[in-house]
């Protein structure tokens, strides 16, 4: 075992996902010359996850296409990349982390970018079933690939973005798809009823059997332990060759908890990504951070959030404090339907639809609170998205009639 001397100016990053990879790049861009070690539990180079449920799953992108930075970057920038290596403990007093093989790495600053893992469906026998899949990593896709073939019957548990994106790719590949959602509508946690209805219509048009208000009560297993059917509360059985469970994410906060850092649905950080320990920062999906727009705290699961926090943390570490001020945004691709959202729609008191959700595949939904535009979901209109972003950034007060009026370009409302 190799024990490092404690005096060091090294920055150690735990987690080689979007936030970790963006952080080491941002750190060098911010001028930090000292040693940087990025420790990631997954094998291989850091990669972007969004294509896992889109271009990569459909076979249009290769694993190399997913790299966040080209492999050569790490070497050129002198970044000590240790992938396939898990950090098992943090010693905040001695300022080092412990790796799975017992090695210790001392740090001047520690950045936790541990993301999260797919929430498991608790049902007897499910964990052992070879045809029950989750979608968070490249390994998850590798595990389901050979079953993801034309004619296979796919049951998707959970009607969130990941489940719906997989359903879309599956239809394009030629699988038979049923989506099972417990709530009365898909995407219920993130969007307005009109937008949910739009997605339900599109998926139905594409041949997906969308079932809302549907409680999964159990599974029927074949003799080899794989799931043969999903059992519903109604008594119905959905025969399946594979099951995709997309019911959300559990942030990886155990390391932080064990190290005595505050955790509240995510590692608690301030607007500079600092935990209560001045030597420890946290970024990305695993953080609970102050919510500038609405007050309180929030945890976001998106690439723009991971990238922005990476930049903020790099600034903090290099001594120039720049608070997180970016307005959250997100995208989702399903079939030919490109969704771009801006702002956070929680807490709205009025939804204004520009265009129609009942026919066609392009519209915008604006979320207003006290008459101010707080968020927007824009489907298949990059032009309206650009304008919507500006309206949200300005917290513009726009009359609902004006937003609805398709003869008035949104740009004119700025």
């Amino acid at each position, binding site marked *: 075992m190799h024990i490092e001397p404690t005096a060091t100016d090294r920055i150690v990053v735990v987690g080689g996902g979007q936030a970790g990879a963006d952080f080491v*790049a941002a750190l060098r*861009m911010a001028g930090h010359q000292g040693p940087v070690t990025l420790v990631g539990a997954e094998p291989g180079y850091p990669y972007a996850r969004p294509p896992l449920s889109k271009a990569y799953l459909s076979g249009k992108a290769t694993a190399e296409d997913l790299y966040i930075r080209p492999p050569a970057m790490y070497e050129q920038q002198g970044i000590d990349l240790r992938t396939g290596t898990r950090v098992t403990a943090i010693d905040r007093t001695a300022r080092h982390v412990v790796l799975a093989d017992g090695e210790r790495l001392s740090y001047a600053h520690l950045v936790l970018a541990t993301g999260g893992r797919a929430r498991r469906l608790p049902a007897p026998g499910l964990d052992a079933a070879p045809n029950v899949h989750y979608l968070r990593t490249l390994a998850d896709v590798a595990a389901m690939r050979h079953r993801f073939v034309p004619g296979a019957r796919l049951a998707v548990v959970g009607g969130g973005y990941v489940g719906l994106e997989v359903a879309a790719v599956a239809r394009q590949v030629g699988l038979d798809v049923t989506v099972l959602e417990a709530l009365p509508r898909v995407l219920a946690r993130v969007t307005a009823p009109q937008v949910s209805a739009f997605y339900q219509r599109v998926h139905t048009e594409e041949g997906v059997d969308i079932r809302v208000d549907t409680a999964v009560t159990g599974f029927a297993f074949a003799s080899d332990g794989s799931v043969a059917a999903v059992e519903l509360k109604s008594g119905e059985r959905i025969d399946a060759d594979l099951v995709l469970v997309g019911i959300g994410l559990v942030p990886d906060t155990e390391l932080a908890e064990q190290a005595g850092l505050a955790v509240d649905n995510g590692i608690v950080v301030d607007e500079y990504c600092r935990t209560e320990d001045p030597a420890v920062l946290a970024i990305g999906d695993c953080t609970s951070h102050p919510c500038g727009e609405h007050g309180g705290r929030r945890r976001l699961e998106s690439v723009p959030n991971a990238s922005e926090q990476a930049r903020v943390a790099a600034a903090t570490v290099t001594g120039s404090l720049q608070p997180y001020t970016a307005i959250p*945004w997100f995208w989702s691709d399903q079939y030919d339907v490109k969704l771009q959202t801006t702002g956070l729609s929680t807490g709205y008191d009025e939804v204004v639809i520009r265009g129609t959700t009942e026919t066609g595949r392009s519209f915008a939904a604006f979320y207003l609170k006290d008459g101010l535009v707080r968020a927007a979901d824009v489907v298949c*209109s990059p*032009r309206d998205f650009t304008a919507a972003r500006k309206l949200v950034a300005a917290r513009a007060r726009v009359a609902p009639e004006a937003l609805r009026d398709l003869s008035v370009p949104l740009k004119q409302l700025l």
Partner: protein
Amino acid sequence: MPRVVFVRPDGTKQEADASDGASVMQAATANLVPGIVAECGGELSCATCHVFVDEQWLGALPARSEDEEEMLEATSEEPTDASRLCCQITLDASLDGIVVHIPKTQK
């Protein structure tokens, strides 16, 4: 290996090597060129990869797609005729040495 010359708002130049078939955006992120954030990773969703293509190179580029055209309206800096989302510029030998200017408002 096509090269890209990035010109920062303060006039300093940064040369980057890219591989054939890579986009100008990828050349930027591979070489840590500041000001090209590229949040969506080239999926034409974010408009944080805006550049102004140097005049002498404009003619060498294929036209903007409709989506790119629309997304350009969302950039932080006012777009011009020379504006491109650089994830949409694919490099090959004919673009070796292409010069692009980074908008000053892009962080």
